[in-house]
């Protein structure tokens, strides 16, 4: 059922994007491991580091899929709902961290509020790309792509 939602072109592109996303995630984890182990850099609470690295990878994959029109399948309502949900979560996390905005970083390390804010940035980026893609797509779709040829000809006359 999952595969039927995407056509062959979309499946191919999604596979390529997932592969790059996996490499990106592994790369981030290796950099994080190096910083933690060899440089002694602890930039966030341990559990939060994993969350932020994962969120960065998910954001990268989501943004590329949205840009390449393979984020959702054909005519899926999720194309319209998910970006707005992402923006909602972004603002929600932002407002959660707002009361502690003076304490986003403590001792060179992100606080929990700082982690919330960074997560909000990731959600915002994905949401804004999705909404922007939705708006641009609507404006750029020509009559020829959605209207039968004869109807386009009669409009031109």
């Amino acid at each position, binding site marked *: 059922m999952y595969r039927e939602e995407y*056509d*062959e*072109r*979309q499946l191919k592109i999604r596979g390529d994007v997932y592969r790059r996303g996996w490499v990106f995630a592994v790369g981030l984890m290796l950099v994080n491991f190096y910083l933690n182990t060899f440089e002694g850099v602890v930039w966030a609470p341990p559990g939060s580091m994993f969350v932020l690295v994962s969120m960065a990878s998910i954001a990268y994959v989501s943004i590329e899929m949205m840009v390449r*029109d393979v984020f959702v*399948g*054909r005519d899926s309502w999720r194309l319209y709902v998910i970006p707005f949900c992402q923006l909602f979560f972004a603002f929600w996390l932002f407002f959660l961290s707002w009361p502690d905005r003076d304490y986003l970083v403590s001792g060179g390390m992100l606080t929990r509020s700082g982690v919330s804010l960074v997560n909000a940035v990731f959600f915002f980026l994905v949401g804004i790309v999705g909404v922007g893609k939705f708006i641009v797509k609507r404006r750029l779709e020509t009559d*020829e*792509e*959605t*209207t*039968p*040829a*004869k109807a386009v000809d009669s409009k031109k006359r």
Partner: protein
Amino acid sequence: MGKNLRLKAARAAMDLSQKQLADRVNVSRQTINAIEMGDYNPTVRLCAAICRTLGKTLDEIFWEDAQEG
């Protein structure tokens, strides 16, 4: 890969939009657009489905000499 104007012409002859053709062959509109623009090389199965829908042969739409760009 050049544009596939034969596909576009065959689709226009059937008075189909990209969306309508896409729905009939069970792919997205963007895929039909990508095929017409020469940005995507479809599988034989999809080529056959498109030809069946448009009432054309594979040679008439997808043979290399038929593509202009």
